[in-house]
């Protein structure tokens, strides 16, 4: 009898160990595929931005997009992950940051650690996505090297600091203000949009965008079907992004990043409803397929902060609201002399504002964990100010310094001739006759908008 009990106890212990290991492996598998889906976001941005550019700049635009990904990943290894672990309390360094130092035992293959690499990978893709948000706005005139520096700062420093503050179970924006930003509308989209606005102010508009009287010309995309398809791919990849926003707890219910119970079912309801609302809203406002697809994106962003708790028809209506109003924000910015080639500030910056404040207005009162403050309008508003400033100030100051040093923008003649001639060794459409034009006249008045 005693032997049977001993054997039984041993079997139970073995089963518990095996079950725990299965849970760990399943967690890794889940985030692996989320990371893979997030790479589709980059395929989408690649198509979207290349389609949005003119033929003379198409390959340079693509190269910029690819290189952003390529420099954000290693810099996120070098210092980005450490920043996330280091600063949840503000500017003092948390001892948990030791695990994020690039020479740490957790920052490489480790048989006792199935989590660090997979979480680092998911966050690295978040980082690359954040810098990609900027890349479309600045096409056709930013210097590639300048853009890469800005991409590293935004992707591996600025947004991840914001995430440490407000997308972390112990981040001070949640611990002190009850911030609820489950789908990262604030810490990814608002920060990226604000950073981009700071850069655009110093970068200036494309040649031919504005007339002498200040009125704007439409600089037409060379391939709208490609751009729209790219935007749809971003939506597919967004499911990986949002999957990465939920926490797989072995043997227990999912939680959001703040440790509050959540379900993928909730995300499924609200992501699809918000996306649909965004398409409808943008269609009603613009009848423009480019904006309709952007509407899908802003629909999701507008519902992202409360993706875990919206009643789905609310997510749908938020999407419609955002889809209708985002083109208006884009038009307002254009009238103010901000040449945002793809509407990134309107879609992501404004979308992030809507996302955060929708929770403040319609989601106030949800409880937090461990005696931290409940969700409130004030808490969401404080986070809005913090994220906007965290994005805008570095973007503006760094691009200002680059502009002063004359390293931010390509020279006039290069922009007129087309960036592909300067940056790519191959042609995009060698048989079409749509090769970049040679430089003709140095006079700005002689260069019409295309």
């Amino acid at each position, binding site marked *: 009898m005693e032997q049977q009990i001993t054997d039984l106890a041993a079997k139970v212990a073995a089963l518990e160990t095996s079950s725990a290991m299965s849970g760990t492996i399943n967690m890794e598998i889940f985030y692996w595929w989320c990371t893979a889906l997030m790479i589709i976001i980059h395929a989408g941005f690649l198509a979207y931005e290349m389609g949005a550019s003119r033929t003379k700049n198409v390959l340079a635009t693509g190269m910029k997009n690819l290189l952003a990904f390529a420099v954000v990943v290693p810099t996120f290894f*070098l210092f980005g992950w450490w920043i996330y672990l280091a600063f949840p309390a503000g500017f003092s360094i948390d001892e948990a940051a030791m695990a994020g130092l690039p020479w740490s035992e957790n920052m490489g293959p*480790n048989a006792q650690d199935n989590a660090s690499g997979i979480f680092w990978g998911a966050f690295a893709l978040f980082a690359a996505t954040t810098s990609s948000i900027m890349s479309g706005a600045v096409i056709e005139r930013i210097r590639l090297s300048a853009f*890469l520096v800005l991409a590293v700062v935004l992707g591996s420093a600025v947004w991840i600091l914001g995430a440490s503050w407000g997308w972390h179970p112990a981040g001070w924006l949640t611990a002190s203000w009850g911030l609820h930003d489950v789908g990262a509308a604030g810490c990814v989209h608002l920060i990226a949009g604000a950073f981009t606005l700071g850069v655009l102010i110093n970068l200036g508009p494309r040649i031919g965008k504005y007339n002498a009287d200040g009125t704007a010309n439409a600089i037409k995309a060379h391939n709208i079907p490609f751009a729209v398809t790219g935007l749809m791919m971003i939506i597919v990849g967004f499911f990986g992004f949002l999957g990465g926003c939920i926490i797989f707890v072995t043997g227990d219910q999912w939680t959001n990043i703040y440790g509050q119970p959540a379900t993928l079912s909730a995300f499924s309801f609200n992501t699809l409803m918000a996306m649909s609302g965004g398409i409808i809203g943008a269609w009603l406002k613009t009848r423009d397929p480019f904006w309709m697809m952007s509407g899908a994106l802003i629909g999701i962003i507008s519902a992202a902060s409360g993706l875990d708790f919206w009643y789905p028809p609310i997510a749908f209506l938020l999407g419609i609201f955002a889809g209708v109003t985002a083109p208006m924000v884009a038009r307002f910015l254009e009238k103010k002399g901000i040449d945002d080639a793809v509407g990134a500030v309107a879609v992501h910056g404004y979308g992030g504002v809507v996302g955060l404040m929708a929770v403040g207005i319609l989601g106030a009162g949800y409880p937090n964990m461990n005696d931290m403050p409940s969700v409130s309008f004030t808490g969401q508003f404080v986070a809005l100010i913090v994220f906007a400033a965290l994005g805008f100030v570095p973007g503006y100051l760094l691009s200002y310094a680059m502009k002063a040093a004359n390293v931010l923008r390509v020279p006039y003649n290069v922009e007129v001739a087309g960036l592909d001639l300067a940056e790519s060794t191959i042609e995009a459409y060698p048989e079409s006759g749509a090769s970049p034009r040679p430089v003709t006249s140095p006079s700005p008045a002689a260069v019409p908008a295309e």
Partner: protein
Amino acid sequence: MNSSPITTWEGAGAYFTFADKPAVIAFFLLAATVACFGAIVIGFLHENKSFKNFE
């Protein structure tokens, strides 16, 4: 040079190449850092050269 930090898989923890040799890790980390930022610098220099063709 033996790059493996482990001699058996039993109880292995960090097993990445040279995990037990901090100086080698430091070397490769520095090399990766130089390569990453060096590429941006090389890109900047190439742009300067390329832009001259348009003057």
